[in-house]
């Protein structure tokens, strides 16, 4: 992702930069999203017109109806993603949260719907950190669902590890899957909005995750190779946070 010169400018305060970055990100996302939603709406409309004409000629219209359903459900999915990203500001004071609890909550939801083996490896001595619990849960869900997809109905596991970074710089959450892994080509494009290799994916999952992590002054690290599985690490740094009185030792 290109950084805007405004964000590099030293004379702008970090708080202000976070706000600017959010607008830039939203602007870029909005452009791609409006492009894609338009495509889907033009398709839906156009298929309806085709159906009209075909019915007049007594031609079969089953294919068009299937395509309308597909386009409408993809449009709905895209719309839900963008809604959940833009909902709620970042300016509000963030609560201090134990990230292990978010991991437990997320796994509880996912365990009921998937047959995958989940392995937890959580560091019980983690510090509380300021974050937006809903958004970070969304990141965890996106990441874990990607892992589930990567297993592709085959046997395998997803391991979630939390821990402290060396020299106490912050904390990390690692999501490791034993799935299909990725080529170098794919790794480079992962975070682009709409990049997907899945038939029914929106390709927005990871780009939204990246934006959410940026808004938390964090980032995502990826390690993967074809057939070797993938590891996505969410990294939260203490010293890049706004000084926050609630960062305390447990």
């Amino acid at each position, binding site marked *: 992702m290109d950084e805007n010169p405004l964000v590099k400018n030293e004379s702008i305060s970090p708080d202000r930069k976070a706000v600017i970055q959010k607008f830039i990100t939203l602007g870029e996302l909005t452009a791609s999203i409006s*492009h894609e939603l*338009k*495509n889907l709406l033009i398709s839906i409309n156009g298929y309806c017109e085709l159906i009209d004409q075909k019915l007049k000629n007594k031609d079969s219209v089953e294919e068009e109806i299937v395509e309308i359903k597909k386009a409408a459900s993809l449009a709905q999915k895209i719309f839900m993603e963008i809604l959940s990203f833009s909902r709620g500001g970042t300016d509000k004071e963030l609560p201090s949260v134990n990230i292990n609890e978010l991991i437990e909550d997320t796994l509880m939801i996912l365990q009921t719907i998937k047959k995958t083996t989940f392995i937890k490896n959580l560091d019980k001595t983690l510090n509380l950190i300021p974050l937006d619990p809903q958004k970070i849960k969304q990141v965890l869900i996106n990441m874990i669902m990607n892992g589930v997809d990567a297993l592709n109905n085959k046997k395998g596991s997803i391991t979630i590890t939390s821990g402290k970074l060396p020299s106490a710089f912050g904390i990390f959450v690692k999501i490791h899957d034993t799935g299909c892994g990725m080529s170098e080509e794919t790794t480079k494009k992962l975070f682009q909005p709409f990049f997907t290799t899945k038939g029914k994916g929106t390709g927005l999952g990871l780009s939204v995750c990246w934006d959410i992590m940026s808004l938390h002054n964090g980032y995502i690290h990826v390690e993967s190779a074809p057939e070797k599985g993938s590891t996505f690490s969410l990294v939260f740094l203490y010293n890049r946070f706004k000084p926050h009185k609630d960062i305390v030792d447990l």
Partner: protein
Amino acid sequence: MTEDKKTIKVLVIDDHPFFATNLKYKLASHNYEVIAAKNGYEGIIKAKETQPEIILVDYIMPEMDGIETMQKLNKDPDLKSSYLMLYTSEAYPQVVEKSLKAGAKDFILKTTPFEKILEKFEKITGEMESEQ
């Protein structure tokens, strides 16, 4: 129709199947053949196979986006005579600029009425003929 006019081939590279289907349906009564490809990789293979006069490329597609697809098509020595166009739902200046750099000669908005698109195709192929 007096002479045997050559059929004009139009390749549509777009992951939304509607756009190729629609052009196929509307161009059926004219002297055009529409070929559909649902991503960049398939598009490049079909372009080499069929040597289309006109290639329309969508902007956002899975795996390889329109810009990258056009760069690859444009670099291909086998495809020098194809007229490459961005086929987009919105003409953001940045996107149009990027696609011109990638080798597109023009762009068509997906909301353009069919008659106008046909007009454009006729003009392009007319110019191609007079160049020969």
